[in-house]
Every structure is written in C-alpha cells, then in structure tokens.
C-alpha cells in the first residue's frame, strides 16, 4: 500500500480511476513536475526503471521497441505506436514469459495511451489501457447493441 503522496501534487496516490462502468481502464493524476520531466520517465530506461521494471529497452518512435522486464521474470513487450514528445505516448502492451524450452508465442497486444497536459507548474497525466477483456465485451460499446439485436432475432437455444 503506498504512503501519502510527496510534494504538492495532491490527489490520490496512484491517481484517480475513471468512473465505474466505463470499459476502458483509465487513471488520472497530477504530478508536481513539468511535462518535459515526466515524459522522460516514459522514454528513458534509466528513469523508467525507477518506477517500473528492472531493465528496459525503449525506442521512442513509431514502431520502436517497448520492453520492460520485471524482477520476477515476466517481460512486458510491446511497440510504440504514437510518440508526441512531452504530450502523448501510445504503445502496445502484452506480456511474455519465455516458456521453458518452448517456442515463444507473440504476446497479446492491448494498447496503453498516456497523455501529458501542462497544469500550472505541473502535469496532468492520464493513462488509458484499451483492449482489455472487459473492454472487449463492454456493454457501452456500439457493437453490443448490434449483438443484442441479433440475439433477440435468433431462436432461443
């Protein structure tokens, strides 16, 4: 459990979640540091490993590698999709733990979107993690009403 936030950032440690019932996982928090500083913690391996992973390989350009190894073994592996320095970062996100002696299977890809907005001397960071299983079957999605209509039209099992 995290302790109280240090500094003048304020708000809930780890940020506030978006309202319940929304399919996309979303968290926002204010950081008492400028966007140019916060940005480095996403694209500089030496800084990233201060908060996520024990080693990192980050090529911050569309198509570049995004790879973060956890202490216990699993490796988060993805690719940068959008890179707008100090403003917006999108990368795909999946895990791969190399199977013992087996053929590695390409990891699943969900998508993480990070936006940084200046807020006085600080930064408002919003993270959205798209494509999670609950997101895929979320009742809020357009496709759901279509499928409800289809189910209503089919004969009962």
């Amino acid at each position: 459990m995290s302790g109280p936030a240090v500094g003048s950032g304020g708000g809930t440690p780890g940020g506030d979640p978006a309202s319940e019932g929304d399919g996309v996982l979303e968290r926002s928090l204010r950081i008492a540091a400028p966007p140019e500083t916060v940005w480095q913690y996403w694209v500089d391996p030496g800084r990233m490993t201060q908060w996520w992973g024990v080693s990192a390989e980050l090529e911050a350009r569309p198509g570049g590698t995004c790879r973060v190894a956890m202490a216990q073994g699993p490796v988060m592996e993805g690719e940068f999709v959008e890179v707008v320095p100090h403003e917006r970062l999108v990368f795909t996100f999946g895990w791969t733990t190399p199977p013992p002696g087996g053929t590695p299977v390409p990891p699943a890809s969900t998508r993480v979107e990070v936006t940084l907005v200046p807020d006085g001397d600080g930064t408002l960071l919003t993270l959205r993690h798209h494509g999670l299983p609950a997101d895929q079957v979320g009742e809020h999605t357009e496709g759901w009403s279509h499928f409800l209509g289809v189910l209503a039209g089919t004969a009962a099992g």
Partner: protein
Amino acid sequence: MTYINTVDAALRAVADPTRRHILVLVRARELAAGEIAAHFPSMSRPAVSQHLKVLAEAGLVEVRREGTHRRYRARPEGLVGIRAFLDEMWRDRLDLLREAAETEARDVAAGRRPVIRPRRRMQ
C-alpha cells in the same frame, strides 16, 4: 507470478478477433459449441473448438457439459479480475512515477541536480 500468467493468457485470448466475437456472443447467455460455430460459417469446427479452448484456459468462459455437448458462457470473474489486477498495477506504478518525477523536479529547482540529458541504458 501465477496470476501474471493468467492475465497474460487472457490478453492473448482477446488479441484474436474471433475470440473477441465469441466473448460477446456468450456475454449474457450460454451457447452450445454448435450454436457458436454457426456464427463462423467459413471456419472449421476444430478451429472454433480451439478458440473456445483458449478462452476456457484463460478463465474467460465457463464450460458446462450436458451429455456429449459443451455449453459456454462468459465468466465475469475472469474479466473483472484482470481489470482489477491491471488497475492496481497502474495505480501502484503511477504512484512511484509521480514520486520519482517530483523528486527530480524538486532537486532541479533546488540546484541539487542539474538538468541532464537522458542517460542511455543499453539492455
């Protein structure tokens, strides 16, 4: 790290559009394997069965056997558990990110640390 393996399996499961479609089909009602396969007329039955197996092993669907038939339904705990795990992961990670970035900003403002170029770290 068993649960990360489960989460990983679930993320791989939904990386496939057919499996996403199946999840939506069985979201609110239980369907037999044959009823599910009818939604994918150009796919062989073994291929559909393989997709169902992946979903079941990832804990995303429940399987109920009725005689020789298998019936499938989305498993809400599977969906909710994964979201909760990742939500907590991001909450904890972002908290650490904030502490690190704010410490750096304070150090720079106080002259304890110069504004430096990002360090390269080859892995």
